[in-house]
């Protein structure tokens, strides 16, 4: 299986099974290559533009998509965010910070038994809505959001 990893790093095409599993994802990468970073989505400056770049403009809120983040962040530099999708056949999850210069923070495709849950730590330049977007295998998009307040710092630690 080392073979596959090397193939991936070299940018050779993913195996058929992988391609099938990942092709339907948010990012549509079939290879792991820096050049395939979704520049359009990551460099979009407003959340609607990010959603558009992900093909998720027509998304709707879902109670089955859980977004866990603090009401008030102790420090905007490191805000823990967890997204859990209970929506059947979720294949991808993306996380956005509306007020950041580039809202799209991270996006993950799941395959081969990966549970559609992701825990990340994000920077928030200011108080902002944090959004989660989930995509299902049939191409539907769902969202969840939560406002995270960023407080003024004191001294020390």
């Amino acid at each position, binding site marked *: 299986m080392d073979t*596959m990893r090397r193939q991936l790093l070299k940018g050779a095409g993913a195996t058929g099974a992988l391609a099938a599993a990942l092709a339907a994802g948010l990012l549509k990468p079939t290879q792991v290559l820096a050049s395939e970073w979704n520049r359009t989505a990551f460099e979009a400056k407003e959340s609607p533009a990010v959603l558009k770049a992900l093909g998720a403009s027509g998304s709707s809120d879902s109670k089955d998509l859980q977004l866990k983040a603090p009401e008030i962040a102790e420090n905007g530099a490191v805000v823990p965010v967890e997204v859990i999708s209970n929506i059947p056949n979720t294949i991808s999850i993306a996380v956005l*910070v509306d007020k950041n*210069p580039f809202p*799209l923070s991270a996006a993950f495709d799941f395959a*081969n*038994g*990966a*549970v559609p849950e992701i825990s990340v*730590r994000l920077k928030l330049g200011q108080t902002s809505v944090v959004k989660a977007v989930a995509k299902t295998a049939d191409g539907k998009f769902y969202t969840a959001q939560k406002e995270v307040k960023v407080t003024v710092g004191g001294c020390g630690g």
Partner: protein
Amino acid sequence: MADPMKIRAQMKGDVAEVRVLMAHAMETGQRKDNAGNLVPAHFIQQVTVEVGGKLVIQGQTGTSVSRNPVFAFKVKGAKAGDKVVVNWVDNKGDKRTDEAAIAA
């Protein structure tokens, strides 16, 4: 060369929990240093996780991810002893691969 990652993988029931800690500056390209110069953007763009030889997570990341990133994932169908391999590649082409075995 980039510093090693810390990978922790452990079975919780039938799910393997994988936590990855990466050493990376994750510079946004918008921050100024003490001299007032912009620090160039330098951040991880791609992350992959393989468990037991199968690609399970393929991620892309932007500048909003915190410095020294931490990611946590869960994988079904894995078992203790399976190898977890994590890769990252950043916008400058730097990369790093580390691995760990899933603990019982």
